[in-house]
């Protein structure tokens, strides 16, 4: 069992940063709901507010790590142009997808959408984190501010889901491969 360096980095980008970011939304929505709920039946304590601040910072870091590692590490491997005369596109995922009408759409729709819409997530979650830092549990007194923060958090989740979903499917159709091969396990045969 072996993996290439590029496969490991792609996993870190998609599952490590992106997957964790998406998972973190379940906690973020509960936290935001508790802050935003006007009936104040279960308001956040000072300790919970502190914890939620750290949680939102971690989400912001994850969101930026995902898009930056995607755009500046994985994407260059994906869009690499093969040298003249190469017909085996195994190391050139974009070219591999574009070479067949049955897979072309994964690039022209999937990657083209993903590479732009993904950036909505860090922008939106940074704003949400900032607003929570500024207002804390007082956010419940600002109905329109908390509604906007919640809506942008939902937008960040949708944007990250689109990017993550297409990322997984793109990697299934044309995996990013290459680089140093790392042996993980020795086969029995």
């Amino acid at each position, binding site marked *: 069992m072996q993996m290439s360096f590029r496969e490991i980095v792609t996993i870190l980008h998609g599952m490590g940063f992106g997957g964790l970011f998406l998972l973190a939304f379940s906690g973020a929505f509960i936290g935001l709901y508790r802050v935003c709920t006007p009936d104040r039946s279960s308001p*956040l304590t000072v300790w919970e507010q502190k914890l939620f601040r750290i949680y939102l910072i971690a989400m912001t870091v994850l969101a930026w790590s995902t898009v930056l590692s995607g755009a500046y590490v994985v994407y260059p491997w994906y*869009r690499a142009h093969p040298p003249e005369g190469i017909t085996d596109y195994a190391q050139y995922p974009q070219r591999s997808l574009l070479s067949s009408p049955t897979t072309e759409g994964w690039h022209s729709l999937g990657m083209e959408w993903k590479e*732009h819409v993904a950036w909505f997530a860090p922008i939106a979650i940074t704003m949400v984190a900032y607003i929570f830092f500024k*207002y804390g549990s007082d956010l419940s007194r*600002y109905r329109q501010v908390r509604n906007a923060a919640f809506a942008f958090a939902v937008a960040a989740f949708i944007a990250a889901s689109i990017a993550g979903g297409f990322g997984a499917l793109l990697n299934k159709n044309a995996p990013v491969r290459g680089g140093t091969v790392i042996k993980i396990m020795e086969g029995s045969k």
Partner: protein
Amino acid sequence: MKSNQHGNESGSEIPNGVAAAAILSAGVGCFCVSLFGLLGDAFPAVARCFNFYNPTGPLSGVTTTAIFVWLILWAFLSRSWGGRSLPMGKINTIAFLLLGIGVFLSFPPFGDFL
């Protein structure tokens, strides 16, 4: 300033201008990502200008410029609106509209249609 057990600062009122600046600039930032992406796709000269980092191609310039616009606008609006209370309804509407148009423009079939 005294805090109660739930962390509310009694008697303190933060003007909503700080939030308005963050919300509107986030909407503009999202819109700019799509707008610059669309312009880069439509005009090869623009794509060449956005090619800040060759391995990533025009995407590097599209996103860097959009982030720059977002952060500069955020800083400017925070400075201008920081101590004020503003009509949040209007600002939210504009921010959501920009976010919606941004999503619309980022979807390749719509971008190609335009």
